[in-house]
């Protein structure tokens, strides 16, 4: 099975599903939904089968490589390391969950129901490709291509101001994409000169180039700004709250949990690996922006009156922690940051989907329009509380392990940013418990009196998220073991090592069990 093109097959499945959906006759909405769920579920099963064969020792695995445009050195090259496979798995898990949760969300859209689910499948296929592309040009193409389905998902199925939100999102992303394109062209030019006219866009080839420091800085900036827009970092974040508010909950999950991860994924995969010197040069600025994002996002989340915007701002804060962990350049920090990408994806998905259930019932996303829901819909309230606790990184849940590792990895090298960012755990408690209090507790308000509790389908969509968040919170070892070797090779590439503790302790029980 070693030569089986796992990544291509897993990515092609949802794409095929999208084609099948497109060919369905009108009016077969239910069949379209079932097929969408089926294709994404099979992709998940295959992804799990593939992951079972992944060797945690590290390195790129399930590698496929074919020449595509030899003249430019472009390859169809796929492969995943420990970071990539985690995000591939997350994408494969979240898509069926989102499809199940969004069962009835497309009915009022401008386009047909089957298009909605077909677009989701297209997005899944592209995202899987982005996380496994090892050719920079291929990555770029897929990266830009994700804009198409997500643009239509926001613009065609969202709230009243969806066009504004979709265009705003598109312009932001295009600006970032253009900067990255310029940087890629620059890389190409360097590749041409340094390889005597045999350029290659393969990541492995590009990391061999020696780029002079000044050029590195410019190219780094091109990539970084594109990724900082994606991951939304302050001050490039303002597209996210609008998009999250106007999009359907399922779209918001795909956008924030999956697509935004391309930003932080890209920082590790491309910014650090291609431009190690420039990355070190930019670290102070990036850390400052990350710390601002952490606090700014948290404070704005406290001030929000809209459920979806609140979740979006909380994500700005959490992305700040992820970026902090990445640029702290410690193994603990980067492992935590990568783990947080997964956990933030799951946790935010739970928040968006359950908030979506609430909004669908109440017909409003305003926090003030709820109150006392716990009394009438305890399961809805209980799952929402769980998602909130995961959002505030309660110890025992997966988000805590990753947030703590990211922050403490930062602390070992950069005390002040870590201390400032850690105070955000107070703010997180505030915005999460405030929204729970305002919506779920207190006397039952007339508007929610008739609200029914979660339906089995709705519950079935969130239960997998809840389970994974709990299990990884108590037993994070398998995932950390997969991530750690990839982080080590990134750090070797950048040329940094962990700061040595001044009073090292050799634990007697280390590795005993």
């Amino acid at each position: 099975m070693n030569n089986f093109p796992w990544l291509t097959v897993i990515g092609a499945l949802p794409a095929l599903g999208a084609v099948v959906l497109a060919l369905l006759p009108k009016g077969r909405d239910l069949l379209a939904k079932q097929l969408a769920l089926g294709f994404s579920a099979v992709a998940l099963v295959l992804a799990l089968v593939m992951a079972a064969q992944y060797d945690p020792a590290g390195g790129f695995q399930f590698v496929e490589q074919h020449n595509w445009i030899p003249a430019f050195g472009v390859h169809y090259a796929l492969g995943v390391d420990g970071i990539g496979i985690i995000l591939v798995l997350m994408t494969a898990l979240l898509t069926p969950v989102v499809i199940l949760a969004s069962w009835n969300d497309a009915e009022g859209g401008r386009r047909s129901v089957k298009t909605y689910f077909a677009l989701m499948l297209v997005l899944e296929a592209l995202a899987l490709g982005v996380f496994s592309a090892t050719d920079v040009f291929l990555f770029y193409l897929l990266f830009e291509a994700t804009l198409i389905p997500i643009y239509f998902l926001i613009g065609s199925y969202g709230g009243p101001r969806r066009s504004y939100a979709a265009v705003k999102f598109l312009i932001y992303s295009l600006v970032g994409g253009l900067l990255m394109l310029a940087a890629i062209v620059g890389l190409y030019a360097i590749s041409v000169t340094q390889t005597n006219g045999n350029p290659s866009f393969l990541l492995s080839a590009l990391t061999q180039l020696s780029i002079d420091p000044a050029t590195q800085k410019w190219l780094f900036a091109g990539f970084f700004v594109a990724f900082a827009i994606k991951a939304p970092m302050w001050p490039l974040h303002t597209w996210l709250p609008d998009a999250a508010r106007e999009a359907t909950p399922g779209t918001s999950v795909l956008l924030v949990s999956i697509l935004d991860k391309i930003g932080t994924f890209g920082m590790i995969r491309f910014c650090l690996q291609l431009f190690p010197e420039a990355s070190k040069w930019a670290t102070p600025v990036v850390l400052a922006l990350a710390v601002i994002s952490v606090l700014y996002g948290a404070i704005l989340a406290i001030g929000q009156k809209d459920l979806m915007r609140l979740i979006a701002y909380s994500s700005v804060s959490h992305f700040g922690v992820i970026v902090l962990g990445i640029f702290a350049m410690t193994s603990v920090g980067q492992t935590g940051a990568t783990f947080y990408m997964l956990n933030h994806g799951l946790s935010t998905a739970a928040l968006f989907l359950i908030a979506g259930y609430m909004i669908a019932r109440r017909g409003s996303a305003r926090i003030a329009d709820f109150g006392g829901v716990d009394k009438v819909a305890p399961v809805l309230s209980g799952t929402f509380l769980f998602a909130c606790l995961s959002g505030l990184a309660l110890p025992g849940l997966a988000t805590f392990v990753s947030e703590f590792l990211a922050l403490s990895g930062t602390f070992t090298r950069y005390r002040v940013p870590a201390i400032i960012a850690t105070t955000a755990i107070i703010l997180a408690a505030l915005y999460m418990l405030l929204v729970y209090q305002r919506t779920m507790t207190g006397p039952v308000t007339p508007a929610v009196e008739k609200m029914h509790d979660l339906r089995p389908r709705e519950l079935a969509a969130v239960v997998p998220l809840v389970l994974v968040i709990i299990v990884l919170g108590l037993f994070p070892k398998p995932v950390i073991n997969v991530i750690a070797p990839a982080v080590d090779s990134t750090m070797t590439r950048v040329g940094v090592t962990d700061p040595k503790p001044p009073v090292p302790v050799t634990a007697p029980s280390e590795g005993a069990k």
Partner: protein
Amino acid sequence: MTTSVSAMVLASEQAGQASGVFSLMWLIVAIPALSAAVILLSGRAGKSWGHLLGCAAPIASFVLGATMFFAMLGRGPEERAVEQQLYTFIPLPSYHVTAGLLLDQLSVCFVLLITGVGSIIHVYSVGYMAHDERRKRFFGYLNLFVAAMLLLVLANDFLVVFIGWEGVGLASYLLIGFWQHKPSAATAAKKAFVVNRVGDVGLSLAVMLMLATFGTSSFAGVFGHVGAAGTGIATALGFLLLLGACGKSAQFPLQSWLLDAMEGPTPVSALIHAATMVTAGVYLVTRSNAIYDQAPAAQTAVVLVGTITLLMGAVIGCAKDDIKKALAGSTMSQIGYMMLAAGLGPAGYAFAIFHLLTHGFFKADMFLGAGSVMHGMNDEVNMRRYGALRKYLPITFGTFAVGYLAIIGIPPFAGFFSKDKIIEAAFSSNVWIGLCALIGAGITAFYMTRLMYMTFLGHKRWAKDTHPHESPPVMTVPLILLSVLSIVGGAGLAYAGGGIVSWLEPVVGEKHLEPPLSVAAMTALTLAVVALGVAAAWWFVARREVPVEAPVKVSPITTAARKDLYGDAFNEVVLMRPGQEVTRGLVAFDNRGVDGVVNGLAAFVGGLSGMVRRVQTGFVRSYALVMFGGAALVVVAMLLVRLS
């Protein structure tokens, strides 16, 4: 002091691996955790048996804990500590965390307190919550609490401690807000969690500093090497851990949540907000004795925090008419005593734990007694509406009276032994601190006598349609058990088998300080001050009829005490209002500032594009050509730069 450090190293670095009965250690935590999960997920079916399973779980843990305690008794003092490594939690080379448990002389005290007093309170709750339709959920939360608290005291790595630490915070949040249809309960629950998170920042940063300094957060690693890290690191760790302890144990300046926490059902107040969870801060400081012994400045801070809080809590307790809030003020104050003792180092650790245990008995006794009173009085909490209840609730009265005698420190009741030791140790270390502790004892006698009189003595001041009745046996038997503990617990812990001081010595060390007066004179002095407090209460409260409405014209001190010494007012002015302003300001800034620039830019580009519209033909191929041309231009430019 050096003896205690080496003792610590011995206790945790050379803790034996769990075998025999000790290999079941993990079950102590797992049983209530599993039970909580089963109860909470059981749906309607669990209504008929949820409370029974809920009681069985802590009892099972208690039996396990007691068995292990007796097994420990059979071993020599240096062989009693037993470790059980469960699994690798974090496998990184730079940060390796093993989820493991440490049962030693210190943690076994807590295991027995949590599961013993916890079981009694569970049984009581069967009766107390009998009419609540969500009783099943209540027991699920209680079990969750017990599991988290046991993890907190049994974990052998600070990161794992932190999981239990916030776990009890979650349980506390859920239980304070158990009647969350009341906005006051929901607000109090959130406040408790958020204030605790302030403390948790301290604990988080402490673990981070451990990682940065030692590369580990295990007890063995940190305590064994903190001496080599220098006073600076030890002091920083000491202050950070103290911040965490202040949050959890409601010590100044993070005390404000505890009084509001009385919104929770009374068994919760007894178990979490009196007997166990709020003492976790004392546990943390005592457990970290190896750190504090290296950090005199942090120890002084612990003493000061304890002293301030013991006086604050006592003063607040004097002015409250709500029986639960009066008791909550008292809890703050008593934990202040424990903190004070813990701050004294090896001279005080054992006394801190001693008082923690006796306080667990008598305060749980009194809180449950208060619950029994409320049960008979239509959930009335205002003591001005009580009076003369001794005839109507004889068992409650009798058991409460035992708790009363125990807390004010009358021999031979439990509190006498433990509090007397703390006052003595405080005097030996510093006369002023000792005086504060002594005055605190007097105020304690005052407010407890006031409470006792207003509730059980004097005349009826009941509201209409109040028919007080004694609680059912499922509630009174737990009261009797706790009052027995409040009688014999003090002398038992002080003397049985060499006493708690020598029991704890291998873990926390021991140091005897000479008090300025003889022990007998100290005891006499303390008892005299207590008598003064009782007499003052009689003079001010019992001489005339208790007014049903709280008097308006009162001294400034009373006004301040009624308002919790302005703790909330301070928070509101210094934190809440400015915080709200900042939030409002930033929201406006985000809409007009950051987004305004973007939208302005968009408008500008829009205008510009109007001018260049002629270039836009609408043909995709010409766009593609332009893009290609642009890209080619960049390539050329780059190549030129490289080639030149």
